[in-house]
């Protein structure tokens, strides 16, 4: 919120001239009939995407030359707002002359970019980006019908941000590689969440399957777990200093059990580990003597040195043993 947000721009003022022109006079609006295709030897493909009850629907018609897979004619019908009409019109236009295989590569960004008046000013405001996404979806649908494959096969990955077409894989990788900690960083690095914002967190203008906030927290959690696993692995391989606290206690306990306790018990005593404190120079192990040891004169001299020497030798030279 700042000065420019006080009034809130008019939705319609943010449409490019190309968008408004096509809204008023779409060039490729109309239908292609089976008869037309039959007489020209073309294959007719008709695909729907969306539904009236969702707020917008588009029907795409292709006449495809079966010899070359070239889209000879492309038309659309749309139930939708003006930007849906303009996006569908541009989408149909971009298909003409391309092969079906090439058309599948047309993205919503291509549609939106083609609707811009100047390259660096968006053609529609953020909340209208989804209209061009529909255009992208219906192309895949049509191509799937023509090629006889599942439309999902064109989608290599799960797309989290439809506007900027950022995949789940990309997001996870970028977060990990760059050690990203905030949503703002994620948007800065990937552009995901920078347009219609509905993929950032639940409550945006449309419900999503994946949200950036969840992805970030999941990846951060995984990174923490990986760190812990690394520490645990290091522990197994004997690097005492990088162990977690619990691992250190366990390691000390096992050394005590293995090499120390038996001698104390022989003298009618025992010991327990109370706490471990890490500092840059030392790892302080606090112990308490039990039974006969607690009054024994050598418990602060010979016995103590023996315990410390054993732990130092087996685990780390940084260990100091402090009886309390």
């Amino acid at each position, binding site marked *: 919120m700042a000065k420019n947000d006080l009034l809130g721009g008019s939705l*319609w003022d943010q449409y490019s001239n190309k968008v408004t022109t096509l809204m*008023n006079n779409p060039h490729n609006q109309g239908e292609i009939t*089976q008869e037309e295709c039959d007489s020209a030897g073309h294959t007719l493909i008709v695909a729907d*995407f969306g*539904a009236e*009850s969702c*707020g917008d*629907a588009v029907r795409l018609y292709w006449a495809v030359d079966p010899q070359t897979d070239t889209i000879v004619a492309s038309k659309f019908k749309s139930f939708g707002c003006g930007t849906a009409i303009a996006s569908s019109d541009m989408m149909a236009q971009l298909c003409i002359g391309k092969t079906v295989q090439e058309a599948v590569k047309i993205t919503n960004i291509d549609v939106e970019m083609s609707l811009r008046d100047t390259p660096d000013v968006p053609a529609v405001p953020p909340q209208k980006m989804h209209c061009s996404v529909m255009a992208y*979806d219906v192309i895949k649908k049509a191509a799937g019908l023509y090629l006889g494959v599942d439309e999902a096969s064109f989608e290599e990955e799960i797309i989290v941000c439809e506007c900027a077409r950022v995949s789940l894989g990309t997001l996870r990788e970028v977060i990990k590689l760059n050690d990203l900690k905030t949503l703002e960083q994620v948007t800065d690095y990937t552009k995901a969440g920078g347009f219609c914002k509905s993929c950032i967190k639940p409550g945006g203008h449309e419900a*999503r399957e994946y949200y950036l906030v969840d992805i970030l927290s999941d990846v951060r959690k995984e990174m923490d777990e990986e760190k812990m696993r690394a520490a645990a692995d290091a522990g197994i391989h004997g690097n005492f200093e990088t162990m977690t606290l619990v691992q250190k206690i366990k390691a000390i306990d096992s050394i005590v059990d293995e090499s120390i306790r038996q001698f104390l018990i022989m003298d009618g005593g025992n010991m327990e580990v109370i706490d471990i404190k890490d500092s840059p120079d030392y790892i302080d192990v606090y112990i308490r003597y039990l039974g006969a040891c607690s009054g024994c004169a050598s418990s602060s001299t010979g016995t103590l040195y023996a315990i410390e020497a054993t732990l130092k030798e087996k685990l780390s030279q940084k260990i100091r043993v402090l009886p309390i």
Partner: protein
Amino acid sequence: MNVYLDNNATTMVDPAVYEAMIPFFSEVYGNPNSLHRFGTQSHPAITQAINQTYKAIGASDNDDIVFTSCATEANNWVLQSVWIDHILHGDKNHIVTTEIEHPSVLSTCKFLEDQGVKVTYLPVNDQGIVEAHTVKAFITDKTALVSIMWANNETGMIFPIAEIGEVCRQKGVLFHTDGVQAVGKIPVNLQEVHVDFMSMSAHKFHGPKGIGALYIRDSQPLSPLLHGGDQMGGRRSGTLNVPYIVGMGKALELATTDMEAKMSAIRAKRDRLEDALLGTLEDVFTVGDRSNRTPNTILISIRGVEGEGMLWDLNTALIGASTGSACASEDLQANSVMLAIGADNELAHTGIRLSLSRFTTDEEVDYVIDRFTHAVKRLRAISSSYAIVQPTEGGAAAACGIHH
């Protein structure tokens, strides 16, 4: 021809109202709470505005009508102060309202929910109203307040305020009504109905924007929302907005004088417009029984024509209307009134609201019939809903995809 048919959003200030306001900007500008003559000079005009307002809604001298900056303030005031007085400092914890209130009620209720208040949002029936027995069924001994609008802004449908008021009176529960779409459009007489609080707004009845009022029955307690210099008897602080208070009084007087005649003149034009659209166009329908609607409002659903697209074409034809379509809103949330009426989800995207005023002319109605029909024709020619060639086998769309 420019035609403004969005009078439920706001209205033109009646030139007579504007005239009445003019002296109170640069001639009579003293603070009415000052002791000197500059201040007291405005008192007769303010007194007149107060009298006009009391008379227009049938308030008694024991009641308070406190001028506010708008109805949003009045709605916030009632909800937040009932919360403070009867929930935070009382033994109540519950508010009853409807799903289709104005955002100034719904958002405040959401805010109160965050503070731990229980709120019941009553659904509306297929006529877009809530019946009194429904309200009665949801009132508990913990209910502090019932807040239900008098008439709805989208549909114009009039709620049974007399019956709901009686239910609240019997149950001993406070009753607030948002009267914004009723006052100045239909008879509102608070002698005849039991209402504890009523919000109103001048710019809905040809008064200026930035002035509203809250009616408070029997001057009953309600903690102030705005604290300060104890203006308006300490109920609402802030220097009195003299020209706007004068304007509101005048506008209310104009709207409620010969109201039956004014209403039937507007209703005649509205009905003619509605009949013409229903008669000319196929696959259209209007929401709500006409006899129980504010006389200026039409909410029409046009199959195959998305609301924002329709609004665009009307705007190109210099006609200002409104849509509940999700596409036209900044947040793309489907319209709550449309969904609440909800027999058909499609309605949420194809509804166009035309709201007339006493300044709407027969020529304008004729023009709108012509341009409206034309726009429907153009958009249906583009619409996939009216396409003839059917999808290739396997090419039909599944129901709502992830994008919506």
